[in-house]
């Protein structure tokens, strides 16, 4: 299977003395979910921001679906779904307006927007009347689902998730995981999931990337990483979180 994202010798720093990512070389499989795991400050969010060109690498190259990142960043980003911790829904728009904003800007037919919205809400287990309410009227878990609907609205080939499940309680999180897995398979969208929760990573992803201080501690299929930790650090991380 082709790669969805490739990093080639990528360096990135905000402070010249302390690179956030060091010489990162990595290929992530298309059509599947890759979990990027690491402690705070390990560079996982920066890695995600390099993919949708919110940040540019200091050195090296990032390729998405085997293409270099095009100059028209706005159009490029619209091909990539994005969802964050806490959902980041715009509070002045209804949930429906949040989800359909990009489709309206892209000039979709009204009926097509309506259909897509209904499908997504149903897939995420949200009742249709959620669309007419405002984000503040929903629970955290529901907001997070609306956030995922918004990320998926334009049928992106690639989905970037920045700890989208970490701000909800454990029971809600399990429900969200189920919904997400269902939709991911159904839509066939390549997914990069940034998380610090190893359980979540193992449960949702087929590929695991473990970052430590801006470098790859280990990367590979989940089963391989679990069976053959590459270092003391990785095995401690796995044991600490998975028991």
């Amino acid at each position, binding site marked *: 299977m082709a790669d969805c994202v490739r990093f080639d010798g990528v360096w990135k720093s905000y402070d010249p003395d302390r690179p956030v990512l060091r010489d990162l070389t990595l290929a992530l499989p298309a059509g599947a979910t890759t979990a990027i795991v690491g402690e705070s400050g390990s560079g996982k969010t920066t890695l995600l921001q390099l993919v949708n060109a*919110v940040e540019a690498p200091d050195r090296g190259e990032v390729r998405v679906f085997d293409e270099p990142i095009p100059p028209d960043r*706005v*159009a490029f980003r619209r091909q990539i779904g994005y969802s964050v911790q*806490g959902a980041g829904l715009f*509070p002045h728009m209804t949930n429906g307006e949040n989800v359909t904003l990009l489709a309206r*800007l892209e000039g979709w037919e009204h009926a097509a927007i309506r259909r897509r919205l209904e499908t997504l809400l149903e897939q995420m287990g949200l009742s249709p009347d959620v669309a007419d309410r*405002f984000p*503040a009227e929903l629970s955290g878990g529901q907001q997070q689902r609306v956030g995922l609907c918004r*990320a998926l609205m334009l049928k992106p080939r690639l989905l970037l998730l920045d700890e989208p499940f970490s701000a909800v309680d454990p029971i809600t999180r399990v429900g969200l995981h189920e919904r997400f897995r269902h939709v991911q398979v159904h839509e066939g969208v390549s997914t990069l999931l940034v998380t610090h929760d190893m359980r979540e990573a193992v449960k949702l992803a087929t590929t695991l990337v473990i970052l430590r201080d801006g470098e790859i501690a280990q990367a590979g299929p989940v089963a391989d990483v679990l069976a053959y930790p590459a270092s003391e650090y990785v095995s401690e991380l796995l044991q600490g979180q998975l028991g």
Partner: protein
Amino acid sequence: MLPEKHLLRCLLGLMLWLPATWVYADAVQVGSKNFNESYILAEIIAQRLEAAGLDVERRYGLGGTLICFEALQAGEIDLYVEYTGTLSQVVLGTPDVNGVSALDALIAERGLMLLAPLGFNNTYAIAVPRALAVEKGLKRIGDLAAHPELRVVVSHEFLEREDGWRGLARAYGLGTEVKGIEHGLAYQAMQAGSIQVTDAYSTDGELEQYDLVILDDDQGYFPEYLAVPLARRTLPAVAVDALSALSGTIDDRQMQTMNARVVFGGLSFAEVANDFLVARNLAPERSSGSTMLTDLRRNTAQHLKLTGAALLTAVLVGIGVSLVVFRAPLASRAVIYFCGLLQTVPSIALLALLIPVLGIGVAPAILALFLYSLLPILRNTITALTTIDPTLVRVAIAMGLSRRQQLRYVYLPLSLPSMFAGIRTAAVISIGTATLAAFIGAGGLGDPIVTGLALNDVGLILQGAVPAALLAVVTELVFEALERWLIPGHLR
């Protein structure tokens, strides 16, 4: 609802709030300074011109000599009554030139002319309470030199002008410490005992009323101050003819009486002026029906016009500038500091500073109000734009909104409540500050306040102050209602 509809409604609301009419008339513009006598003389001129069949617009209460003269030169007014001494010393800076014809020749090149003097000489005088004069043996101005303990408080203009206190103190060797006060308040303060010596005009109606005596100017320091209509040479011949009938008709005593009838008799300028003209067969009798309501309506409309125009401009410019600078922290801070600096300029000083640039009247008043309205709008807008939840900004960028779309769908709607609060503050500030616009002839609810100050008439002051305060309250309420209508509950 889409956010752009919020903005449209916001603008629509503001425009509805703006009074619609701007009236201009092709009439003779008669000006006056902001003291009693100047109003009466202006009104005599106005009614005389009306009797001759001319349309007249009254631009009274202009804040001081220089404002009047600038206004005349700029063509904002066609004539006002000036005093020869003031003209030669203060305006032209030629204290040696005396006499009407010499002055007339001097101002001809500026396109101005002096008409025939009205008759009286209203020179400056130094007044003290009679009891004090007796007690200290004060007869001449020079006698003050022996009493440096006396509290000398003079009008601001007298304090500043070259032929005022400074020159007087030099001529008579007076070393007394001196302070400034609004002329209209001086007599009251004198009666209360907080002032012992002040400047007066020799035709003031108060001299008799408060039992004051004028100290003898035995060195002849004060020049002649003959009252003369000062006009643009473009004044129509028919107007010049009509005014020639006023030549030499008012002597010192008559002027004192007219002043007293307004200040103490409670008559309006128009009534006193009309009585004078009717007695000389120079104008028909006018019904003196109450004009309070018409005045109130006109002043309120003018007040709203001034604040509305200033506010609308400030909203457009303030939000526009905010949108340009808010992404650059340094520029944002510079803009806010600059506007803060403007805010510290006293409003009356700002108005005066604008006169050489824009003359008097509506334009400088609107500009000044605009400048004062900018700060609250800019500060609130920039603060709102720069403190939006960073997660929302990150999402807006990452999901693929262009910069313009980020503004339209995220920044602007989320800043709306704060922006609106800034506009509301600006509106209330404008309504308060606009009362000062009357000093430069822009009218509004400051008109009765300025006149009331000149007359020391609390009732008249309240006729401007109370409606202005009510207007501020109503504006608060209107904006509150607008806010409820424009901004959805979950954003408030």
